[in-house]
């Protein structure tokens, strides 16, 4: 929120600007009130596990948003690259961390190539990238199935009686066993959840205190307001307060799933990477293209090239995210694991408060938590209210599509409304940036 917005803060405006987030928070709270048998330990185990699994993938959406491509449903292509890499690695019976590392390298190669192709496609469908990205996911799925169901064995020779290949020696089986690649990242180091909360809470508290009182105001750094600081500090203290009795052996949180440190480090690296890249020349180019392609072009930026690079980044990161996802799941569902990735990730980041033109790391992480909380609560709520868990499952499917539709629709509607008031919407919306670019 910029300073101008903060000044005329009103509840109504806050609600309309964050309607999707508000709906989800309300849903989860109502869910907790209405369902008695959801224990906090169960909830946090499920939620944290889903967070480790999905956060990386969701963050893969940020760069295309900043570069003006909108929500990249085409991260499915990245997911497919990751799965192709796993199939290759497992075909040669490699496993463990080494197998995982090799899969990551292969996935990145595939994803760069496919991302380049998809990026070129987006350049040919300017203004319609989001529907194109959705369709390209379906298209890629067809090609992927063609490769794995027919080309493998049909054209590419495979060794006979390989356990991964179907009995007639053509095509890869429906599921691929991961061997010791299963949980390979998760298992590197695990620490208890309550201790993580305690240490994490204290560290974050120290960090925000440093930002508030010690860090000098220079290089564009502006100190947060006292209110903001107080809210964050209270939040940290509450978390620490909850963790202390648990660590001492009283109260709950003792049975929550252990934290996989390696995955958390990867997620943290992703956060740092995304923030860092925005400070580089390339990041500035992304931002310029996202604000206004024509002005970026006239400033000597090769817009098409920048957009392709952004798509490649997104695809490569998504392929790595899919590797984290699959090692957490434990087996590779060859023809199904990638199908919903685009929808779920986009819904998650939108729930976190992102829009077609603005997305941050914080929104991605918060959205992942909130979206998955809804995902866990929905069947429980269906069970509690109607005696049918399946009802909750239909409801959460509705929430996924509804949220995407609502958030995208509201965004376009607001922009169109702004366009009707002024002559040229971009002139007004992007005034500061354009001026900055002109200088």
């Amino acid at each position, binding site marked *: 929120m910029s300073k101008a917005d903060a000044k005329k803060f009103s509840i109504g405006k806050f609600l309309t600007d964050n309607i999707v987030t508000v709906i989800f928070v309300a849903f989860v709270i109502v869910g907790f009130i209405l369902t008695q048998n959801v224990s906090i330990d169960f909830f946090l185990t499920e939620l944290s596990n889903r967070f480790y699994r999905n956060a990386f993938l969701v963050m893969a959406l940020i760069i295309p948003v900043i570069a*003006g491509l909108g929500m990249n449903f085409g991260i499915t292509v990245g997911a497919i690259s990751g799965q192709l890499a796993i199939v290759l690695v497992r075909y040669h019976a490699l496993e463990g961390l080494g197998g995982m590392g090799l899969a990551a390298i292969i996935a990145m190669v595939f994803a760069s190539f496919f991302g380049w192709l998809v990026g070129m*496609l987006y350049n*040919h*469908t*300017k*203004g*319609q990238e*989001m*529907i*194109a990205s*959705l*369709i*390209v996911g*379906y*298209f890629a*799925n*067809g*090609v992927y*199935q*063609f490769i794995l*169901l*027919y080309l493998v064995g*049909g054209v590419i020779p495979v060794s006979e009686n390989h356990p991964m290949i179907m009995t*007639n020696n*053509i*095509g890869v089986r429906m599921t691929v066993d991961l061997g010791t690649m299963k949980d390979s990242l998760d298992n590197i180091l695990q620490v208890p959840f309550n201790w993580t909360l305690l240490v994490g809470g204290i560290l974050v508290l120290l960090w925000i205190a440093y930002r508030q009182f010690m860090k000098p105001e220079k290089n564009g750094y502006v100190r947060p307001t006292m209110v903001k600081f107080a809210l964050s500090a209270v939040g940290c203290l509450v978390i620490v307060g909850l963790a202390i009795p648990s660590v001492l052996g009283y109260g709950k949180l003792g049975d929550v799933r252990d934290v996989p440190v390696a995955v958390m480090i990867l997620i943290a690296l992703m956060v740092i990477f995304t923030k860092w890249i925005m400070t580089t020349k390339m990041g500035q180019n992304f931002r310029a293209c996202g604000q206004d*392609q024509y002005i970026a072009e006239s400033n000597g930026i090769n817009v098409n090239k920048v957009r392709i690079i952004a798509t490649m980044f997104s695809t490569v990161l998504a392929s790595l995210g899919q590797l984290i996802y699959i090692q957490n799941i434990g087996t590779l569902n060859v023809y199904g694991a990638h199908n919903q990735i685009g929808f779920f990730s986009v819904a998650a980041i939108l729930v976190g408060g992102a829009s077609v033109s603005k997305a941050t790391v914080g929104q991605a992480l918060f959205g992942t938590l909130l979206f998955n909380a809804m995902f866990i609560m929905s069947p429980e709520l269906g069970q509690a209210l*109607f005696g*049918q868990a*399946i*009802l909750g499952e*239909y*409801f959460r*499917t*509705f929430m*996924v*599509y*509804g949220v*995407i*539709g609502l958030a*995208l*629709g509201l965004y*376009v*509607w607001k922009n*169109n409304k702004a366009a009707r008031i002024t002559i040229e919407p971009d002139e007004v919306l992007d005034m500061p940036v354009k001026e900055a670019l002109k200088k």
Partner: protein
Amino acid sequence: MNIKLILKKAGIPIIIGAFLVIVLITAGALGISVQSLLSDSLRRVGMNGLLVLAMVPAIKSGTGPNFALPVGIVVGLFALVCCMEWDLMGVNLLLVSCLLAALFCGIVGWAYGKMLNAVKGAEMTIATYAGFSATALFGIVWLAAPFYNKKMGWMLGNGLRETIQMDAFDAAQLLSNFLGFEVAGIEIPTGMLLFFLLCCGLMSLFFKTKAGIAIYAGGINPRFAEAAGLNVNRTRVLANVISTILAGVGIIIYAQGYGYAQLYTNPLTMAFPAVAAVLIGGATASKANCVNVVIGVCLFQTLLTSATPVMNNLFAGTDLSEMMRMIIQNGVILYALTQVKGGSR
């Protein structure tokens, strides 16, 4: 030679048509009964015809292909299920449910058209999610709405079945078999095809009337149409009402032709084959007519029908037809998207 140039010169219909001829010749050479393939294809043309025709008014009005087809489909199914609940049989069931579907879809289509006017510039994306959400929402309706007719419930528990047999209501293939006959071993579902062609004819006539021309004018150049005194927002709403009604009636025709009404997740992706069909017929995201619909649905459905046995025969046991459908269908849509001029940014 440049692939794009070939595509531009020959056009998608010729390319897909040539591909289809190759598939049919292969089928003949492999000893697959071409007659039964063509019978099947005709049946599927009749079943899908109206759903594809629903694209025409939407494209002409400038909102692009109606990716929100599932909205009309689920509402049409709802009308059908209501009539089943009242235990209407045979012709009555079809007639009443079609009328009811038209009524419901008219209302829903109006609201949907209004919504599209609010999101100008991103209609296709929003429409897709409108369709998806409607399908998921009606998943809840099928499960929770108070329907009690034993013929369409589960053996145990509440809610409607995934597929409801039209046979139980004496309505399976009712329209298809009307005046149906066989020529040279090919079954002709006369009633269904006549109904489809009749609707195409009416659509062509409609676009010769004042209202039809207004829709068309608003689609070609909204600003010019506004300047000429047309209310473009209203023509867009009208076009989408027609499109939604066609989708609702279309799914009832589809259900009787297929013999089953399919609920729950089935309507989810039904828009894409319909969009692909009209594009294969030579339409673009901003230009379409009834000829495109007829050519497109014939080419696409015949290709899908004949590809399955041919592929199965050629590639011993590997069913490639599903992925071929995905690649052709989505490839054609992607190609059409690359031809959309301008953009919201």
